[in-house]
């Protein structure tokens, strides 16, 4: 297993796939705090003669802005980075080469998803810490506990989308199909959220994690409110992985 993990880590590092996602997250971590702080000045420069008065952003809003950007643009970039994880190796024959050796199919998939989860989790934790510290330096300290809970909500949601894309990549023949389907579900789940958010089902809907990020930072929602959507998200992650693994085990390569 260690061998496969090292191979995955090396390949992803050299191909710059997962690091590209981390760079995008880092970009938001470093850009959002100064953007929010200097928004009024920036707006005044671009709209000379027009007086736009915006309330000064709070540290809570600034940190939320970073999380929000990552949950949209960051996740989209991640989908494009993950869509080839298995599908590309099937297309090029590398999967067949690997699996003609004493490597189980579950082992092969587990190594890939383990490296993916490690990159995403550690990357988001590091970048969120940087964003938090940068916000604190420029605008004051956002509530620490709330920010940690909101980051956990973002990580769980991102891992769900990563697993979904990974599952498509494992069971579909083409990486483009895997990425395309994941993007469609990403947008549809956002649209569906508009309907679900008005109902009791919101307590168990994964996108609720994103809706809870702001109230969690503010302290207007307690961490216990994310128990339902977090549990469902984690359950979906496990189920998607098991389903993908089960189908991949009987797939012809």
């Amino acid at each position, binding site marked *: 297993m260690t061998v496969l993990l090292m*191979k995955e880590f090396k390949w992803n590092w050299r191909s710059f796939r997962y690091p590209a996602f981390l760079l995008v997250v880092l970009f938001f971590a470093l850009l959002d705090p100064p953007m929010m702080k200097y928004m009024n000045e920036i707006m005044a420069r671009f709209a000379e003669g027009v007086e736009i008065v915006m309330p000064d952003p709070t540290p809570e809003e600034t940190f939320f802005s970073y999380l929000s950007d990552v949950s949209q643009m960051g996740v989209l970039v991640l989908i494009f980075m993950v869509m080839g994880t298995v599908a590309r190796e099937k297309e*090029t024959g590398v999967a*067949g*080469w690997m699996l003609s050796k*004493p*490597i189980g199919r579950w082992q092969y998939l587990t190594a890939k998803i383990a490296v993916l989860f490690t990159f995403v989790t550690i990357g988001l934790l590091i970048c969120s810490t940087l964003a938090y510290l940068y916000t604190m330096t420029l605008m004051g300290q956002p509530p620490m506990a709330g920010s940690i809970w909101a980051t956990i909500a973002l990580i769980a949601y991102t891992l769900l989308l990563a697993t979904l894309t990974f599952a498509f990549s494992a069971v579909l023949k083409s990486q483009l199909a895997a990425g395309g389907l994941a993007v469609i579900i990403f947008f549809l789940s956002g649209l569906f959220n508009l309907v679900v958010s008005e109902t009791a089902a919101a307590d168990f809907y994964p996108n609720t994690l994103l809706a809870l990020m702001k109230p969690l930072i503010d302290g207007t929602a307690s961490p216990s409110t994310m128990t339902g959507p977090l549990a469902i998200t984690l359950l979906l992650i496990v189920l998607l992985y098991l389903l993908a693994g089960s189908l991949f085990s*009987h797939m012809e390569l």
Partner: protein
Amino acid sequence: MGRLSTWYSAGERNKIKGNAIFVSGLSKQFDHHSALRGIDFQVRRGSIHGFLGPNGAGKTTTIKIILGLIAADAGEVSVLGMPLKFGQKLDYLRYTTYLPQDPVFPEGLTGKEALTLVTSIYRLEKNLSQTRIDRLLKYFQLDDAANRRVSTYSRGMQQRLGIAAVLLPEPELLILDEPVSALDPEGRRRVLEIISRLRNRATVFFSSHILADVEKVCDHVTIIDRGRKLLDAGTGELLNRYAMEQYLIAVRSDQQAEAAAMIRKNPAVREVSPQQDKLLVISKPGESIAMAEKLLPTLIRQGITVTEFAPNHTNLEEAFFRVLDENHRREVDRP
């Protein structure tokens, strides 16, 4: 060996034990195309076994089934005495290496890293594996390119690296799909030399289009076409069989036309054709002895001066095309 008892009868068990690969009744359908139609063959342990057939015959499909990469619709396979069950971890892969037709390696790795990955997967001892890697890189003239990414290698270099990778774990069974197709003559010579040296130390099962190479190194060949096994025989036996079916007859030049007409009357003769200043006579399948016994006395009785009457030494390529040709004739004749 315990698990064999639940899968095979005592007779079959004995067959499997003596064979590196045992294939029985293997069938595979892709959409509306039958890739394999009940193929049976065995590969004896320690032998070098050629697996031949034209493009689309079903060679790669068979190999992929053996490796557990695709599922068979019907039939049984066992490798090194262990039965294949698609979708389950195959223990025999620990003792088997495979070279695909177009060698591929995980992206981003250098040649040396790719070989190191192979040694790690097969759990070779670190010091030993490093020595072997260096030795193989040198033998296949890849030592200068060892630290370059494999993606920058030419196709021939990738094939040489692929061969180094299958030799590295010193496996019991090597499955090679067109191992020399991209190599220059020197590269081919080196690979064939290595394969020859493996005789009785490991089993080599390989498919190739270069029949002269197969003839040089193989003890046994299986020929398939359109998903059916056409022939399974020792290389020497196959060549002898076809040599005995072909005779080269030299007669006086002014009697050649008369002799050809006379030979054609023999019911055991299938074909007569001039070959340089001689006549090449091919018997109908299974009638070579009857033809040989009658032909010479008949010619002499008719006053033809026969200066040479000898079996035509055939090569594997000719034998291969004869087998395919006979099969096509049978298929055409089939009602």
